[in-house]
């Protein structure tokens, strides 16, 4: 078996034709970068399960689907926002991307304080090109990652949030990615968050889809957290049951910077949420928490990589999953500590509940420690609901279904409660209720 899966995606063949419409088309540096990345993707191809990092997530089905590129003509947001009960709040800056296309009329930007840029990539390339370019170039030149290369070659409109030194963006920022295309469509949003020294920002990404058509969302988000800055970055993944969602978030943290990441992954037929955080300054803090819920034949992969390269860093991760039906969960969590990263504190916990006979979890924590003055740990558990606890609840009058729901909620509660804001907690609880109310297997 080869380490590559060769796919012949129609949109990749049509690169030349499509490239004239890309955001920033005509900028020499960007055109070159896209071209180089396309060559890289063609050389690398999609990783097969022979590649260690993809051991448990198979892209074969994805490779078979004849994806086209999202275009303005592939339909705009027929999604009714009001139907997405759990999504968004009234008082927030909001950017909306429908089928990969920026939708100005659904977007809403309140008056922005000085020193804050919230815009889409296309506009940012025109008006703030010199701010955006170094970040795009740095990430794109970094490494041999096929999906990153593909995103770079075809990067579409994503969001750009730049906060200058010392500025606190009080109002939360919401980024909505809505998808309901009519034919197999691939979407490659490219996002950028840059928080200057001692700045502060809170963002929530929603990836929501509907409809029966296959689509593939392949977003890449780069997050640069400056010295003493704090970024809270949440993401909710509720793509449609026909969707592939392969997302990468790349975070770099300077000295005493804090990144608080949260992930709720509940949708898509196949999803992989990959987060990489590099603690590149003394005393950087990274907190990553998440929940994954899967049923039927869903495949849900959470992959994290935390790299401690400087002294005194802290990282904490808690991921909990609930798997029903014939779903397949994957958690891969790598924590590496470089020789210079003394006094690192790195902790990771992964717990999965298996509700049904057909559900499966594969967990691969990875601790790579090359410094001696560190405290690192990881823990992983997998199992079913506790019989005795179920019995206890039923003896108090709850029916079997209620008892199961109570225990499942209790299992994830710790992670929900790690979110500071009540509003977002409520939204998460709505999603969980919604998920539970769709019925659990009784076997």
């Amino acid at each position, binding site marked *: 078996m080869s380490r590559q899966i060769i796919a012949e995606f129609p949109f990749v063949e049509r690169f030349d034709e499509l490239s004239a419409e890309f955001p920033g088309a005509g900028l020499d540096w960007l055109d070159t970068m896209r071209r180089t990345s396309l060559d890289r993707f063609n050389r690398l191809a999609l990783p097969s399960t022979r590649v260690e990092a993809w051991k448990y997530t198979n892209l074969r089905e994805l490779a078979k689907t004849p994806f086209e590129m999202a275009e303005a003509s592939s339909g705009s947001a027929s999604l009714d926002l009001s139907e997405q009960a759990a999504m968004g709040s009234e008082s927030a800056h909001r950017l909306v991307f429908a089928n990969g296309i920026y939708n100005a009329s659904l977007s809403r930007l309140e008056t922005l304080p000085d020193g804050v840029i919230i815009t889409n990539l296309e506009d940012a390339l025109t008006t703030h090109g010199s701010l955006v370019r170094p970040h795009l170039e740095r990430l794109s030149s970094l490494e041999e990652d096929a999906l990153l290369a593909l995103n770079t070659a075809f990067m579409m409109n994503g969001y750009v949030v730049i906060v200058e030194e010392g500025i606190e963006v009080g109002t939360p920022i919401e980024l909505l990615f809505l998808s309901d295309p009519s034919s197999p469509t691939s979407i490659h949003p490219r996002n950028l968050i840059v928080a200057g020294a001692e700045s502060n920002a809170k963002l929530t990404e929603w990836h929501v889809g509907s409809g029966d058509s296959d689509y593939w969302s392949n977003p890449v988000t780069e997050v640069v957290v400056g010295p003493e800055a704090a970024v809270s970055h949440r993401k909710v993944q509720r793509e449609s049951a026909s969707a592939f969602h392969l997302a990468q978030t790349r975070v770099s943290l300077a000295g005493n910077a804090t990144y608080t990441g949260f992930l709720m992954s509940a949708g898509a037929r196949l999803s992989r949420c990959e987060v990489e955080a590099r603690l590149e300054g003394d005393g950087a803090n990274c907190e990553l928490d998440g929940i994954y819920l899967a049923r039927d034949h869903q495949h849900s992969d959470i992959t994290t990589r935390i790299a401690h390269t400087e002294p005194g860093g802290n990282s904490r991760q808690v991921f909990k999953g609930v798997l029903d039906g014939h779903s397949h969960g994957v958690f891969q969590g790598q924590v590496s500590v470089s020789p210079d990263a003394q006094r690192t504190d790195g902790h990771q916990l992964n717990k999965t509940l298996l509700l049904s*006979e057909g559900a499966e979890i594969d*967990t691969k924590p990875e601790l790579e420690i090359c410094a001696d003055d560190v405290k690192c740990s990881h823990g*992983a*558990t997998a199992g079913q609901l506790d019989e005795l606890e179920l019995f206890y609840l039923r003896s108090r009058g709850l029916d079997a279904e209620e008892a199961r729901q109570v225990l499942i909620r209790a299992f994830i509660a710790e992670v929900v409660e790690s979110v500071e804001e009540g509003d977002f907690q409520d939204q998460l609880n709505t999603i969980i209720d919604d998920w539970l109310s769709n019925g659990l297997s009784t076997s």
Partner: protein
Amino acid sequence: MQGKAENSRNFTQCDSLLIGDKCGAHTVPYIEVKNRSAKVEHEATTSKISDDQMMYCQQRGMSAEEAVALIVNGFCKEVLQELPMEFAVEAQKLVGISLEGSVG
């Protein structure tokens, strides 16, 4: 845990103790569970000897070398005592040899 592994139980603990600043520890377990009635738990820690433990031993008159040797022996003991006698004796010797010159 394969699909037919009804009511199986596994607990794995993997702790690494770091001595000296040129060492490293890589812990990469694979936990694959295809049966919900199986209960799997894995724990791993990596740390250096705690300052409190060193302080406690030294307050009782031990040198830094003696303290490290004692703590490391204890750390290994939990595993060694599970081994058959003849292995345990050999392993114990190895612990002793590998500690020589580790503090300095």
